[in-house]
C-alpha cells in the first residue's frame, strides 16, 4: 500500500493540566476526504493548529509525503503543499476579493523581495487568481472589497485562497460554520468538485455534509481518536453513537 499523504503518530498536546491532543494517530490517504468529527472541545482545532505548525506538539511526529514536518515553521509547510482554511474567516478585509487571492498566488510564485513592479497589474498573479475565483463562483465579486462580502462569500473566499496555493493537502476547519442551508449546499458542491484532485482533511459539525463528502471518518473525543473507518462503519459503531452522534444517527 502507498504511504499515506499525512501520517500522525502519537501526537500529544497539553495546555497545563488539560490534554487537548491525547496520543493521536491519524493516516490520511492520497485523494481521500478524511473527516474528523467530535463534540465541542474534542481538540479538533488544536489538532489542525499542530498540523499547520502554529502549535508545537509536546510529543509525537507528523510526516507529510514521507518527510518529517513536526518542527517545520508554518510558511515552510505551506510550500510543501499544506493549506488551511480557518474556522473563523481569516481574510484580508481591506483588500479586494481578487487581491486576497493574488496574495495567495504570490506566496507560491517565488520570493516577494520584488520592490519595483506593480503587483496588482501583474498577469502572473491576476490570471491564476481569477481562475481560482471562477472555480469557487466568486468571479463577479473580484473587484469588491472583501469587508463588504456576505458571510457565505467570505467562506468561499476562504476556500479559494487555500486552493490558490495549489495544495496537495487541504485542511478545512469547519468550512460550513455559520452558513445557512443554501450556502452549505453550495459549499458541499464545491468541495465535491475538488474532491479527488486534492486530499482533504475536513472538520465539520454538519453531519449531512460530513456523510455526503467523507471517504473515511475519525472520531475525536477528549483529544483521543476513538474510531476511524468508512462512514457506514462509524454510523454503526456503538462507542461513537454513545459519545457523539446520539439520536442523530
Amino acid at each position, binding site marked *: 500500500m502507498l504511504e499515506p499523504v499525512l501520517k500522525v503518530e502519537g501526537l500529544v498536546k497539553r495546555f497545563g493540566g488539560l490534554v487537548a491532543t491525547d496520543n493521536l494517530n491519524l493516516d490520511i490517504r492520497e485523494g481521500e476526504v478524511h473527516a474528523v468529527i467530535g463534540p465541542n472541545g474534542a481538540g479538533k482545532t488544536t489538532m489542525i493548529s499542530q498540523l*499547520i505548525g*502554529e502549535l508545537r506538539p509536546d510529543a509525537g511526529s507528523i510526516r507529510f509525503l514521507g518527510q518529517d514536518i513536526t518542527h517545520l*515553521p*508554518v*510558511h*515552510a509547510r*505551506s*510550500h510543501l503543499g499544506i*493549506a*488551511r482554511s*480557518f474556522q473563523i474567516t*481569516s*481574510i*484580508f*478585509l*481591506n*483588500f*479586494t476579493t481578487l*487581491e486576497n487571492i*493574488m*496574495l*495567495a498566488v*504570490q*506566496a*507560491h510564485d517565488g520570493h*516577494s*523581495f*520584488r*520592490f*519595483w*513592479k*506593480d*503587483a*496588482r497589474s*501583474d498577469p502572473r*498573479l491576476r490570471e491564476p487568481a481569477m481562475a481560482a475565483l471562477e472555480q469557487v463562483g466568486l468571479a463577479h465579486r473580484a473587484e*469588491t*472589497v472583501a469587508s*463588504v462580502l456576505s458571510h457565505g462569500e467570505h467562506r468561499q473566499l476562504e476556500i479559494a*485562497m487555500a486552493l490558490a*496555493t495549489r495544495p496537495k493537502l487541504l485542511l478545512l476547519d469547519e468550512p460550513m460554520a455559520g452558513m445557512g442551508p443554501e450556502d452549505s449546499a453550495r459549499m458541499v458542491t464545491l468541495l465535491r468538485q475538488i474532491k479527488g484532485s486534492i486530499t482533504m482533511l475536513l472538520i465539520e459539525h454538519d453531519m449531512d455534509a460530513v456523510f455526503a463528502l467523507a471517504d473515511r471518518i475519525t472520531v475525536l473525543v477528549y483529544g483521543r481518536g476513538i474510531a476511524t473507518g468508512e462512514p457506514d462503519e462509524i454510523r454503526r459503531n456503538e462507542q461513537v453513537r454513545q459519545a457523539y452522534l446520539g439520536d442523530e444517527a
Partner: protein
Amino acid sequence: MSSLLRLKSPITTIAGSILLVLLGLVPVFAMLLDDPFMLTLFTRIVIMAIAAVSLNLILGYGGMVSFGHAAYIGVGGYAIGILAHHGITEAWIQWPVALIGSALVALLIGLLSLRTKGIFFIMLTLALAQLVYYLGNGAYAYGGDDGLTILQRTDFGGLLDLNDKETLYYLCWVLLVIVLWLTYRVVNSRFGMVLQGAKSNDRRMATLGFPVFRYRLTAFVISGTICGLAGILTATYTDFISPAMMHWTRSGDLIVMVVLGGMGSLFGPLFGAVTFLMLEEILSSWTEYWKIVFGPILLLVVLFARGGIDGAMVRGAAGYALTGLITLFLIYVVHYLWYDDWIPAAVVLAGAAAAILAIWYRQRREAVAIASAGGDHA
C-alpha cells in the same frame, strides 16, 4: 469603494502634489518676502517629512509602531558629524557610511524587536533607541551631551554647494520627492503587498506561505535607512549634532506626524509633518506654553478625524480638510504679520473661527431640513 491603496482617491494625490509644488516654491516666496528665516523653517519641515514618510512605510503600511525612529536620525547625523570632525568631508564617503550605519542599526533593532508584537514591540524599539541615545550622550570625544559643531559641510565636489541655503533646500526637496516616489513603488510592489497583508492578518500570511519576519525586517531596515537620510540632512543644515536629535520625544513627534497626516497614505506623513511643524512654530512663538494648545488640537484630530488629514479628504470631508489647511495658512499669515503681538492675531483668528462656525451651523440646519423633508428616501 476604495481599495487598499488610498492613492486611488484622486483628491489626496492632487492635494499632495499641490503641497509638493508649493514646497518647491518656498525659496521663491522667501526671496520675494525677503525672509531668510522662512527657508530655515521649511528646510526643517522638508527633512522631518522625509523622516515621517520613512516611519509611515512601516507604521502605516506595515503596522509596526516603531517608537524609536529618532535613533536613525541620530545615527545618520552622528556619522556625518564624526567624519567631519576627523576631517573627512567628501560626500561619497560620508553619505554611504551614514546610510549603511543607519541600515545596520535598524537591522539590529529590528532583529531584536520584531520578535515581539503590540506594546512589547513599541517598548522594545523605544528602549533600544534610548540605548543609542545614551551612546551619543556618552560619546565624550564627540561632545557628549553638549553635542558637536560641524565646522565644514559635506563636500559634493563641484556638483553642489551645500553652504548655499537654496541649494541645500532644493537637495532636501528633491530627496523628499524621490523618497515619496520610492515609497509609492515599494508599497505597490509584491513586497508592498506582503507588508500590507502582514499588517492586516499576519497569521494568515504565514499559512499562505510567507515567512513574514523576513519581509518585516527588510521593511524595517529600508525605513531606518531613509530615516538616516533625514539625519544626514538634519546634521547638515544645523551644522550640529547632539543626543537631543535622537531624544525619545522626537520619535513621538514622528508618530504624531504620521497619525495626524494619515497612516498608510502616501502623502499622509507629508501633510502631517507640514501641519505639525508649522503649528509648533506658530504656537511656540506666541506662548511658551504652546503645548497646552497643541495637545488638545492633536487630541481632537485623533478623536474626530480618523485617518488624519488624509482620511478626512478620502471620506469626502474635503471641506473640513480644506478649512483646516486654510486656517493653518491664515494662522501663518497672521503670525507673519504680527510676529510678537498676540492681540491682533487673536482677534483675526477668533473672527475666522466664528465665521467657520457660522457656516458650519448654517450647513447643518440645511442638512437637517433636507433630511426631514426627504425622510422617506433615506
